[in-house]
């Protein structure tokens, strides 16, 4: 079954977030979102998760959110990555950090490996249906759940969403990028981990 959803571009979706985030926010991006976030400009508190273990960005974000409860933490994950660690939805709501927002940029495919459909997209399912990520998030216990298909809607609501106590789940329908490549690491990961800790005001260890 073909994909019939209206979708915003991932770059548009991220540009909206980039404009709305505060300098004090931590923004963690993975896979294609990390690639595009670095084009927009990653700040000193941002973590483009490259290299990654696919699917672990929400757990890393949860850890930072629990350790830094006064700071907003925003994770941008892909649908393929989300499917690899669906249990993270439950882990997040069990710990229930009010300062965590999980944004799922859903394009239905494993984009950086050649746009193969995920098992959650109509093209790979015998029922031809979309997997209901919003329903999953609600069932997992997210207090604040949102779903947008256009950048205009997302832009209209983003500040309210980020200000609402969470944990918050946002599903954004984003378009595939034909021929997209994976993100490149912006530098040695251990140095970037140390830099993030320094920028969060944490001493060496």
């Amino acid at each position, binding site marked *: 079954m073909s994909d019939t959803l209206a979708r915003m571009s991932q770059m548009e979706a991220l540009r909206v977030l980039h404009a709305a985030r505060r300098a004090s926010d931590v923004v963690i991006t993975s896979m294609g979102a990390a690639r595009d976030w670095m084009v927009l400009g990653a700040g000193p508190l941002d*973590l483009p998760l490259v*290299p*990654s*273990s*696919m*699917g*672990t*960005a929400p*757990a*890393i*974000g*949860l*850890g*930072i*959110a*629990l*350790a*830094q409860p006064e700071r907003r933490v925003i994770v941008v994950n892909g649908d393929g990555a989300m499917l690899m*660690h669906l*249990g*993270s939805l*439950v*882990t997040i709501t*069990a*710990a229930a950090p009010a300062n965590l927002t999980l944004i799922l940029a859903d394009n239905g495919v494993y984009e950086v490996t050649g746009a193969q459909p995920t098992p959650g997209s109509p093209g790979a399912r015998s029922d031809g249906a979309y997997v209901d990520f919003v329903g999953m998030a609600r069932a997992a216990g997210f207090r604040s759940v949102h779903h947008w298909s256009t950048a205009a809607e997302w832009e209209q609501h983003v500040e309210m969403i980020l200000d609402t106590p969470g944990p918050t789940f946002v599903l954004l329908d984003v378009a595939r990028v034909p021929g997209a490549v994976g993100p490149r690491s912006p530098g040695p*990961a*251990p140095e*970037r*981990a140390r830099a*993030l*800790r320094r920028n*969060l*005001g*944490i001493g060496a*260890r």
Partner: protein
Amino acid sequence: MFSGDEMAALCTAMGVTHVVSVADSTIGPWHPAIERTDGLRLIRVCREGEAWALAGGLYLGGATPLVMIQCTGLFESGDALRNILHDWQMPIFSIIGYRSYLNQTTLPGDTCLVFTEPVLEAWRIDYRLITTPAQRDEILAHYIACRDASRPGAALIAEGKA
């Protein structure tokens, strides 16, 4: 081998702030004591691969996490472990239950005894095998050595029944 109160006291002595865990029949009974200990927070994860990433996030945020899982979870969580401990070089310490080490009455021929230590060695995790309660201070000493060297490490705790 250890009571929950003993394990919670050990975590406190280590300066741990968060225990990230999946229960097994040895670790699970420790959870209530960990939960009621001031200064410790128990974070339950759905699978062990999450544990390393969550602990990594806690570390990035300035907390002092400990991963507490069974060896079967170690097997499950290899890629997350690789990324956090080796790609990002975060010095996460873990307590890993060694299923069937003390007896195999539940699972005769349990292959955990075949694979656990080779897997730890393959992942280059410096571990100490703990088979008696008298080795409690060895866990603490190993933790302090790993912490001071800013490298990961583990205590492999012998378990009985599965």
